[in-house]
């Protein structure tokens, strides 16, 4: 025995505090390999945005790929809809702790966008996603290629509702969901990584849910 108070030594060892009387109320146990640390499963679809939901008319909508200031490709809605379509079923994880399992999305993969502008490989290692409403988020290109990222235009078979990012949102499901930027209009390739909107307000630059990278320094 040392002179340390039992309470302090317990905290030092576990780095957690037992909450007197707190118990799990979870009925069904989600398999551990489906739920990242600190997350819980929800069946509804919470909405989290920093400002008003932009009201975008499809007739005014365009989507562009940029390298620095130069345009690699630009599509209107009909042209974008004519690109090869991919559907995926994925789990999504929001930094505010909810996870939603088995969500179905349809859209154009990042790989197919590159092909559509005649590129066989990405021209730079990072992208900044630019959105209506001024929102931005940065993602490494390595996290988008190989069918890992898409511009999604359908959720559960239907057009994505505006509050959830419609008409089109970036989808990078293996990162916290703020990286899956709503109302995306432009992906801009960057030679050097730069923080986007939430990344400039103390949120983690990369945001891997399995490493619980919620905030700067996590």
């Amino acid at each position, binding site marked *: 025995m040392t002179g340390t108070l039992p309470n302090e030594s317990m905290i030092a060892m576990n780095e957690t505090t037992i909450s007197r009387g707190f118990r799990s109320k979870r009925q069904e146990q989600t398999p551990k390999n489906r739920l990242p640390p600190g997350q819980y499963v929800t069946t*509804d679809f919470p909405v989290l945005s920093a400002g008003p939901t932009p009201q975008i008319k499809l007739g005014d909508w365009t989507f562009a790929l940029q390298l620095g200031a130069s345009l690699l490709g630009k599509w209107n809605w009909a042209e974008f809809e004519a690109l090869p379509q991919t559907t995926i079923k994925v789990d999504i994880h929001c930094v505010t702790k909810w996870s939603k399992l088995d969500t179905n999305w349809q859209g154009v993969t990042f790989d197919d966008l590159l092909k559509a502008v005649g590129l066989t490989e990405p021209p730079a290692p990072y992208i900044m996603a630019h959105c209506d409403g001024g929102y931005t988020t940065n993602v490494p290109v390595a996290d988008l290629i190989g069918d890992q990222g898409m511009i999604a235009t359908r959720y559960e078979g239907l057009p994505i509702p505006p509050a959830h990012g419609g008409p089109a949102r970036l989808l990078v499901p293996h990162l916290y969901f703020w990286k899956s930027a709503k109302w995306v209009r432009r992906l801009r390739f960057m030679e050097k990584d730069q923080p986007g909107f939430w990344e*400039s*307000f*103390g949120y983690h630059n990369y945001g891997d849910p399995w490493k619980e990278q919620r905030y*700067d320094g996590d």
Partner: protein
Amino acid sequence: MTATETAARPVRRLKWQLAQVREIVVETYRVKSLLLHVANWRGHLSGQHVDIRLTAEDGYQAQRSYSIASPPEDELLTLTVERVENGEVSPYLVDDLRVGDQFDLRGPIGGYFVWTAAMGGPLCLIAGGSGVVPLMAMLRHRERRNGHAPALLLYSSRSPEDVIYRAELDAMARRDSHLRVVNTLTRKQPDGWMGRRGRIDKALLAQECFPPEQSPKIFVCGSTPFVEDVSRFLVELGHDPLTVKTERFGPSGGQAP
């Protein structure tokens, strides 16, 4: 809303800290304020939130986000928590937690939905239900700093029993001629209720809010449908979307982003 508007970017890791309950205030029949002592609290800005983590005997953990209700000037950190029926964390915090209990907490989090006295006014705060919590931190901060920036709190509650901070808000508005508190009750009004009735609609916003020409700093907080409606009305009334900062509360959500 650009990355260059950076405020208070934390550079150190947000470590889990021990918070001890010093006082519990019953706000309504399903809302309580927890006044916490956090030994090495680094300070916060009004509008920010914290993550809390509860750990069961068997090691099970749950994390949630809660808005800070206290201004940076206060010694204790106040969280105001609404009991979400069938929730896992909020019923524990509201019904089971006692003075002296401890839990893990880290923060402050969020740097966009914040107001400091230095940002000036007019300050236009629009709350639905427990969405009033981060806005209360702004009003308390404004008062502690003897701010005279014109301010409005437009606050929608279901019934008189659901109005959080009612006495404090009334007293604050009585003391301060530059602050207006406008309550509207959506479901039940007491006999002789002289305030507003029904949901916050475009006409009410047009009548009560500072006009776009005054470039008010607007903060909207409440449930998702509430925030969606109010922020859309504000844009339709001519407010620049970039001046409308929003935060959604939901049974499944926390806040931001």
